[in-house]
């Protein structure tokens, strides 16, 4: 039930400004922590700005959709929807400078496959990835726990697909519209384009579904307004403005979406190569060093990450050793 879900409680936000607030906060937090890495002194030149991050992530959302579409074996729609949810949620609390989107992208899809019970093994999964498959396996598996941790272990996603089915059943039963099944292609393309927007973080799945149905109806020169006002909301007219507003906002979001400019994204990616967190870059020396230390003696080497409490404890004990 969506009304009592964690999705509603923790992952449906009031407005776009709130989302922007999270993203800017993550960006400035990263810059603050890594200020020392910038030699030129011009922070804006060295680090990505929130707007650049947004653009980069938009490009990777396109990649994400392509990856899912080409996936072999073909994956059900709900896996795609869930993967997009995870991707968006992850970058609300993290910046792409910390974790490169191409790694998180694959991990999101992998976790979504599991959660939506679309059974693919990791070897089957990495067959869909170009390049070094062993490395990809390592990256996906090592990021898996990080991802679900960052999602706060809220893995259940309510996608708009079932609500859409519900609306179609209801329309077929109660309205006199001819052959509602012809709406399906339009509905599908609309839902696909909502993936590129933040609609799923701002609206309920049923609202997105209804928006898709209404949009499809207008494409087919049909009018379902009477269905909404006279059948759906007949007993709750006062709630109608809220719904109309939500549907309008979703449709505007979809309409206003623009594909990111390839050249700009390329420039941003170059910039990212310099300013990204080297500790999380699998090609960097720092990462390899950290990995090596983690594997050789996990017990007494403190984890690099300052968020681990172990680090504090072991530094205390080492201080004790020197004083003795």
């Amino acid at each position, binding site marked *: *039930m*969506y*009304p*009592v879900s964690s999705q*509603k*409680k*923790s*992952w*449906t*936000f*009031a*407005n776009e400004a709130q989302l922007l607030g*999270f993203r800017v906060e993550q960006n400035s937090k990263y810059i603050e922590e890594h200020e020392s890495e910038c030699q030129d002194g011009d922070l804006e030149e060295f680090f990505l700005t929130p707007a650049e991050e947004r653009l980069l992530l938009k490009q990777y959302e396109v990649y994400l959709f392509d990856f899912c579409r080409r996936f072999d074996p073909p994956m059900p729609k709900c896996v795609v929807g869930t993967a997009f949810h995870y991707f968006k949620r992850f970058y*609300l*609390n993290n910046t792409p400078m910390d974790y490169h989107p191409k790694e998180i992208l694959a991990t999101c899809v992998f976790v979504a496959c599991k959660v939506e019970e679309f059974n693919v093994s990791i070897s089957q999964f990495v067959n869909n990835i170009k390049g070094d498959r062993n490395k990809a396996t390592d990256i996906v598996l090592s990021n898996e726990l990080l991802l679900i941790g960052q999602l*706060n272990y809220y893995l259940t996603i*309510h996608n708009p697909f*079932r*609500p*859409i*089915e*519900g*609306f*179609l*059943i*209801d329309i*077929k*039963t109660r309205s006199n519209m001819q052959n509602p099944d012809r709406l399906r292609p339009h509905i599908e393309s609309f839902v696909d384009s909502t993936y590129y927007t933040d609609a799923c973080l*701002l*609206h*309920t*799945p*049923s*609202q997105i*579904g*209804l928006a898709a149905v209404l949009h499809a109806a207008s494409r087919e020169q049909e009018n379902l307004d009477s269905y909404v006002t006279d059948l*759906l*909301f007949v*007993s*709750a007219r006062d*709630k109608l403005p*809220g*719904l109309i*507003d*939500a549907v309008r906002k979703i449709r505007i979001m979809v309409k206003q979406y623009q594909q990111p400019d390839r050249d700009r994204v390329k420039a941003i990616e170059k910039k990212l190569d310099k300013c990204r967190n080297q500790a999380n870059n699998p090609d960097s020396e720092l990462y390899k060093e950290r990995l090596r230390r983690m594997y050789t003696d996990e017990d007494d080497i403190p984890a690099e990450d300052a968020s681990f409490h172990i680090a504090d404890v072991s530094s205390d004990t080492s201080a004790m050793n020197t004083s003795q």
Partner: protein
Amino acid sequence: MEDQACPRCKTTKYRNPSLKLMVNVCGHTLCESCVDLLFLKGSGACPECMVPLRRNNFRVQLFEDPQVEKEVDIRRRILRDYNKREEDFGTLEEYNDYLEEIEDIVYNLCNNIEIIETNKRIEAYKRDNRDVIQRNKTRVGRDESALEEMLELERVQEESRKKELDELETEHKKKKARDKQALIEELMYSGKDAAQIVTEFAEKAEKQREEEKQLPPPKSSNEFSTGIKFGQTADPTLIPVPKSEEGPLFVYEQLIAITDGPTPPPTDEIESEGYITHIRPETQQENAGGFTSTMACERALQEALQGLFYTPTAGVAAGI
């Protein structure tokens, strides 16, 4: 078994496999032949500690360590007098103190600590508690006789059962002889084929053997050989299993479906209003799993309507 040797004649278990070590109240060992030799007159002194001993107090040593043997002996003697039970005391603490006193006494006597004083203590105790001791002694006697009675009863039962079996056996033998006789007579006087008669009789015998196999099993007893009954209500002396603390009982509460949207049609309307006609009927496999298309239809409709009333101001998410 390596070093079981008589301290006097130095015979070992190895040289004399039938060596029997004996022990007396003082806790020193002697082999059987030495006991025979030394205590020819019936009494004498222990060759080790010179304590006067009686021959008929010698027992076969059960424990390898004679010290343990001695302790067992002392304990038996002490417990003859210190025979109070838990019921004789007001509190558990008093009973525990009493048990501890016994242990003290036994320890002292075993290790020759303040023997005289300890013996005085025992004497005083005996004097003070004479009637209690006497009473408990008779009680012990009663318990023992009850046990003996039970054993006797069991023995009688065993005997009667054995007799039954014997009777059955003789009966069986007689029958076999009769059958044999019948076979011979048949062969002699009947005009049938001999081979056929033999097989007929063999079959008959086989059938009988089959029947005998299904003899009634020994009648089930409802007592252990110790006389403790089982299969009946628990012995009153056994402590009942402590009842675990139970929390408050489960109270069923009807699930309240929060829709936050228009009310979905109730289950009975799914079919009557024709919603069901717009959904694929369930396959046989799905039906076997308990799923019906009504459920799927209802769920889709519910999910379509859930959260339609949602407005951002109505519920502002707080992030993680």
